[in-house]
């Protein structure tokens, strides 16, 4: 299936985890890549803690966290850390809020910064954004970031997404189609989080149900355990075995004829309705930084489904086909 991933300093552990699971290797995932090298690499704290099969000190939510869901304190902390290595005087008195025009200018600078970094396939690291662009405006990082995201969406059709809260990594991803955007906006309870997408892609790539043990192997790498409460997701086990199931995103069934009892996950009817296989391929491509065609049979399936959908909806917009990118 997927050959060795590109050697990027990519701390996105979901990639390694999914990779190992897809090869059905029991248990231990492949060597975990170190956190990104950067001039600010000497940060103390979670970013540099060795991340591996042993649980990291702080639970890390998986990719695809929406920026708005993130606890602002965590961002603030990251911004603080981003400044930690600079020669700093002791805490200064609260500066006056900048003029709106200055924040707008910072948003434009950040927009360009993000575009160039992405062009160079470089990691978008939040502390770097603070250090390199926002500087003394770091207190207004949220509003700057929000404005930048808006501009990128409106003008470039790109979403600036926080893909890994643990490592404060962002990514520029192609925007959803207008229909999806509306759906996400209208239905806030829709748990289009990386957690669900990860489980769905695991199932999809396997081509059959995913055993609960396999799912937990994947989630464990990100610091999610069945018995541990998570700051955003709470009781993760309850979330995936009950809530997602009640919402019909997942099916959770006993594996027949197995003792002691084991359970496995399947796509739920709602996932089948709302999520396309092509979206899963795009998610995988993002996580692995590969072309979706690295999973040829799955990709073919996704194409088939996309074609069937198009034929069923001839009046709709010509579908955005991410694979025809130059």
């Amino acid at each position, binding site marked *: 299936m997927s050959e060795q991933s590109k050697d990027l300093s990519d701390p996105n552990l979901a990639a390694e985890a999914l990779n190992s699971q897809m090869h059905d290797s029991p248990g231990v995932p492949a060597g975990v890549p170190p956190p990104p090298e950067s001039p600010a690499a000497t940060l103390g704290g979670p970013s540099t803690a060795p991340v591996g099969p042993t649980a990291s000190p702080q639970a890390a939510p998986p990719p695809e966290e929406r920026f708005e869901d993130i606890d602002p304190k965590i961002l603030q902390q990251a911004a603080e850390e981003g400044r930690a290595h600079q020669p700093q005087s002791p805490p200064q008195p609260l500066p006056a809020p900048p003029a709106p025009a200055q924040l707008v200018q910072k948003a434009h600078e950040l*927009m360009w910064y993000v575009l160039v970094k992405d062009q160079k396939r470089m990691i978008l690291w939040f502390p770097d954004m603070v250090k*390199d662009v926002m500087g003394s405006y770091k207190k207004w990082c949220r509003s700057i970031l929000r404005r930048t995201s808006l*501009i990128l969406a409106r003008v*470039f*059709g*790109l979403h600036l997404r926080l893909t890994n809260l643990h490592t404060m990594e962002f990514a520029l991803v192609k925007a959803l189609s207008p229909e999806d955007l509306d759906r996400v906006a209208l239905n806030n309870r829709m748990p289009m989080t990386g957690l669900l997408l990860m489980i769905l892609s695991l199932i999809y790539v396997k081509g059959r149900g995913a055993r609960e043990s396999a799912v937990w192997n994947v989630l464990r790498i990100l610091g999610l355990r069945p018995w541990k409460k998570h700051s955003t997701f709470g009781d993760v086990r309850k979330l995936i075995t009950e809530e997602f199931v009640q919402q019909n995103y997942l099916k959770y069934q006993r594996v027949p004829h197995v003792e002691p009892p084991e359970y496995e996950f399947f796509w739920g009817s709602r996932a089948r309705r709302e999520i396309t296989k092509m979206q899963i391929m795009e998610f995988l491509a993002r996580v692995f930084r590969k072309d979706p065609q690295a999973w040829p049979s799955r990709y073919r399936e996704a194409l088939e489904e996309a074609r069937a959908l198009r034929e069923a909806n001839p009046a709709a917009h010509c579908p955005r086909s991410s694979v025809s990118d130059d």
Partner: protein
Amino acid sequence: ATSGVFSAVGAPSNMQGSSSGRAGVMTDVHRRFLQLLMTHGVLEEWEVRRLQNHCYKVHDCNATVDKLEDFINNINSVLESLYIEIKKGITEDDGRPIYALVNLATTSVSKMATDFAESELDLFRKALELIIDSETGFASSTNILNLVDQLKGKKMRKKEAEQVLQKFVQSKWLIEKEGEFTLHGRAILEMEQFIRETYPDTVKICNICHSLLIQGQSCETCGIRMHLPCVAKYFQSASEPRCPHCNDYWPHEIPEVFNPEKEREAGGSKSSRKSLRTRQH
């Protein structure tokens, strides 16, 4: 600068925009175009046309493809408030039109700061100065590498510096020809303003288009300089080429005007139209 070799396509403040009559409307066609133009960094005109057609095909199969100039002006009218722009330029050696999305706001080498470390940026600065100072617009690898000790930031050895120079070539900031380096068209597009402001005494200007000149031909009598594509256009139908400034006989070989049609016939490969050697001063 007047409309020169490097200028924006049309005028950004021209609000005539797209063929629909409304200005500054961004659709998914334009967005995808921008995304992909940004991904590629710099594109030649035929690639830009192909890209435009691709974006129409993907998003709006039935619409007529806008004229490229209008299409780009439309996008630029939206980009204006963001201080970025799709800029059109012409390569100095053989007059090919190129396009790049450039940032107008920052006017320093730190434009590239997102890509490179401090010492690498300084290496570029040193190479840039050598290129601008040189007669031919080229700086030799040896001369650049000899400055490695003077670089700011982390100490860099010559071996590393060689690799950094290759990085610049790959990122299309520099062009290498036979061990010598000059500025890529993309770098000129992005940095012209900065270069003119920073090196006002040593910078060279084309007598015809009044834009920044790195490579070109010069009059041996009065010293004025012209870009090769500008020479080609200016002397196109001249039986006896003469310097526009001092009227002395123009001693250099006159290059051909870039013809995209001929390019396609030749199979589109750059090497099939061996461009004139540029060192003719």
